[in-house]
């Protein structure tokens, strides 16, 4: 692909782009599109940070009460 990509072509390839898995010609076409499309630049930035935000925001530890219940179950199951 020698021409710059469209927005939909760009979005379709974003995962391969951020993982550095695009063939060089496609990478050039995608980057040529980014130069002219601030929407896709914004989209790319937010696409890139989405997994980090979701990961950070759902980082939790088991409550003490739940850990105690689980421990009791394991003890019961292991009882000879």
């Amino acid at each position, binding site marked *: 692909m020698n021409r710059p990509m469209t*927005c939909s072509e760009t979005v379709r390839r974003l995962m391969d782009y951020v993982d550095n898995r695009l063939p060089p010609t496609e990478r050039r076409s995608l980057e040529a599109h980014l130069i002219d499309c601030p*929407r896709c630049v914004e989209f790319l930035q937010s696409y890139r940070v989405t997994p980090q*935000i979701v990961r950070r925001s759902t980082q939790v530890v088991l409550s003490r009460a739940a850990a105690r219940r689980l421990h009791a*179950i394991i003890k019961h199951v292991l009882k000879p």
Partner: protein
Amino acid sequence: VYRLTLRLAGNVGDGEDILQETFLNAFNKLDSFRGRSHFSTWLYRIAINTALMHRRSSRRHATEPLDEYLPQFRRDGRHKRIDIDYSAASRVEAVIERRELMRLLLAALSRLPERYRVAVVLCDLEEMSSAAASVVLGVDAATLRQRVHRGRLMLRGYLDAVARGERR
């Protein structure tokens, strides 16, 4: 394992129930562990199956899918909406209180179609390698990547809407 079950369940109560069921199932199936995969891979597979069974048998699950947050394009391939700020998602943590964001995102994860949810949870949230996640889910790497990409697009759009105050 709890983090995994919580993210698959979408709420703390179900996440804890699934955790307990996972360990009970694992004990019952311990004889079937042949050592052909890592123990953690085997346990993850049990946790995922337990979570999916739990969800299917539960009446309490979100029915409103996240498809509406996928990007839309005009016939010429350009973004359909040029009136919105596509970078809003990047700032969501500054706009929404941490606890609330966690509640919203757990609920959003549970609204992802099952195949996307599991792929996103394993690859993006548990940071499992594509190769390991492919083994756990029994799908090829290309299919897995496609599912992660689509799930990520839905979550990105959802975060955008949350940050703009259009969705809670």
